[in-house]
């Protein structure tokens, strides 16, 4: 259904001096249908650039991105950003309705969908509230509800919890995984937090510094729901961090 194949993908930004800045080099990555894939890498390595190319906000300099059995133009993409990116002049319900309207969901079906997803993120009492009256965690929940409500083929997430305090982030990770288990979307989740990657992912792909490539991938065979206190999570996380440090150390 929504397996993503990324082949030999490179991206070079044009710069003032005309030399160009290569942020991604020969990235190969497959995200299987209904898989929760995490992409871990140091800050500024080009993770967001990769995501933006999958979302068609940017065109690759070389290589290809394919969605198995689907026309790339028609792929329905859900995107959860680092900031909630809500329309602050619209109510919580209207923010979700906006996405449904853009996706041409018939008008009479929208209220029920809005209701359903707000309930799933625990915000059904806040339909008529304006985003700026909500806490940061609650605003993130609206962003999550909006992304799930359009039934995306692929859900992209760009460090969605990195601006939140750890307690709120933990709660939201738990809740996000609950939602994902119900809907089983194909997910590509970007983070610089190794513990988060191991806790969330079926698989963790690790990226090097700029120009970034994926130098190792690791399946996480732990059963769900997972627990932070599971020593196995901590052990795998430690191994990945060590590998990353070795690799980044090589470059210096």
């Amino acid at each position, binding site marked *: 259904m929504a397996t993503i194949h990324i082949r030999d993908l490179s991206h070079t930004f044009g710069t003032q001096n005309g030399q160009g800045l290569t942020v991604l080099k020969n990235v190969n990555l497959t995200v299987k249908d209904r898989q929760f894939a995490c992409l871990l890498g140091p800050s500024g390595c080009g993770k967001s650039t990769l995501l933006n190319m999958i979302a068609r906000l940017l065109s690759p300099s070389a290589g290809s991105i394919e969605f198995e059995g689907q026309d790339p133009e028609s792929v329905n993409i859900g995107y959860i950003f680092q900031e909630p*990116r809500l*329309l602050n002049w619209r109510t919580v319900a209207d923010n979700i309705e906006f996405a449904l309207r853009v996706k041409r969901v018939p008008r009479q079906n929208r209220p029920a969908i809005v209701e359903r997803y707000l309930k799933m993120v625990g915000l059904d009492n806040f339909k008529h509230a304006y985003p700026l009256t909500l806490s940061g965690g609650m605003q993130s929940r609206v962003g999550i509800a909006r992304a799930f409500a359009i039934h995306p083929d692929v859900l992209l997430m760009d460090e969605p919890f990195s601006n939140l305090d750890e*307690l709120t982030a933990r709660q939201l990770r738990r809740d996000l995984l609950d939602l994902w288990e119900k809907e089983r979307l194909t997910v590509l989740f970007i983070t610089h937090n190794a513990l988060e990657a191991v806790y969330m992912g079926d698989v963790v792909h690790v990226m090097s510094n700029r120009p970034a490539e994926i130098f190792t991938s690791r399946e996480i065979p732990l059963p769900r729901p997972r627990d932070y206190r599971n020593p196995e999570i901590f052990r795998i996380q430690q191994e990945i961090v060590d590998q990353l440090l070795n690799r980044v150390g090589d470059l210096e």
Partner: protein
Amino acid sequence: MKPTLTEAIPASVPDRRRSGRFKNLHLYALSVMVLLGLWAAIAPFFPDFILPGPVAVGRASWKIIRSGEFFIDMYYTIARVVGGFLGSLLVGIIIGVGMGINRQIETFWKMEILIGLTIPGLMWAVISVLWFGLTDFAAIFSIIIVTSPMITLNIWEGTKALDTKLVQMARTLNTPRRIIVREIVIPQLIPYLLSGTRLGLSLAWKVVVISEMVGLDTGIGHQISHWFGLFSMTNVMAWTLSFTLIMLLLEFGVIYPIERRITRWRPETKEAFVTAQA
């Protein structure tokens, strides 16, 4: 998902859609009373041709309002302001948006705006009468010249402050361009447009009255100048007072409610009409 312990989600948020009409109405009333009281207290010490009392002025106002005379001239004045203001809105939006999205346009017009804001409105009122004669267009032209820098300035600020991350969000949904403009760009510009309108209108009223005093034979400004020529301070003040009342009505009855409605999503709506008149 259940509501969480860590986030302490409150049961609901106060519904802001209906809250707050005019708070502290009694203070507004008191403020007007004090002004009238001072006026009434001072006036008896002066002859009528220097400072008539509020009762005399009120009576004269009532007379011009009841005779319908007031509304004829008010109509001319308002029509000129509306015409000039629509013109400067057009100019301001075109130049302001251009400045917000292009560095060279920005640099070019920055200087013009600065000059435009510095030259006194009176000068333009006189010049446009010299150029265009005793015509409505003279008044409209001076309004456009005087208010468009203020509106341009606001639209420019608003365009620069546009949140492009929201546009990016919309693009991930494949949102058509016209919906992006309508739902994401325009709502972000409206608060700036509104504050430009407010400041621009307050300038426009002043300029139009000057134009009418200098060279036109209709409008509030013409009446003020006419009664000034006859040394009737009572009528000068009656025309001014009636005009001011209409302006206040417009502010409280039209602009302020529109502003409240449009900016109700902000956590703290400022009592904006106080700040903007300054």
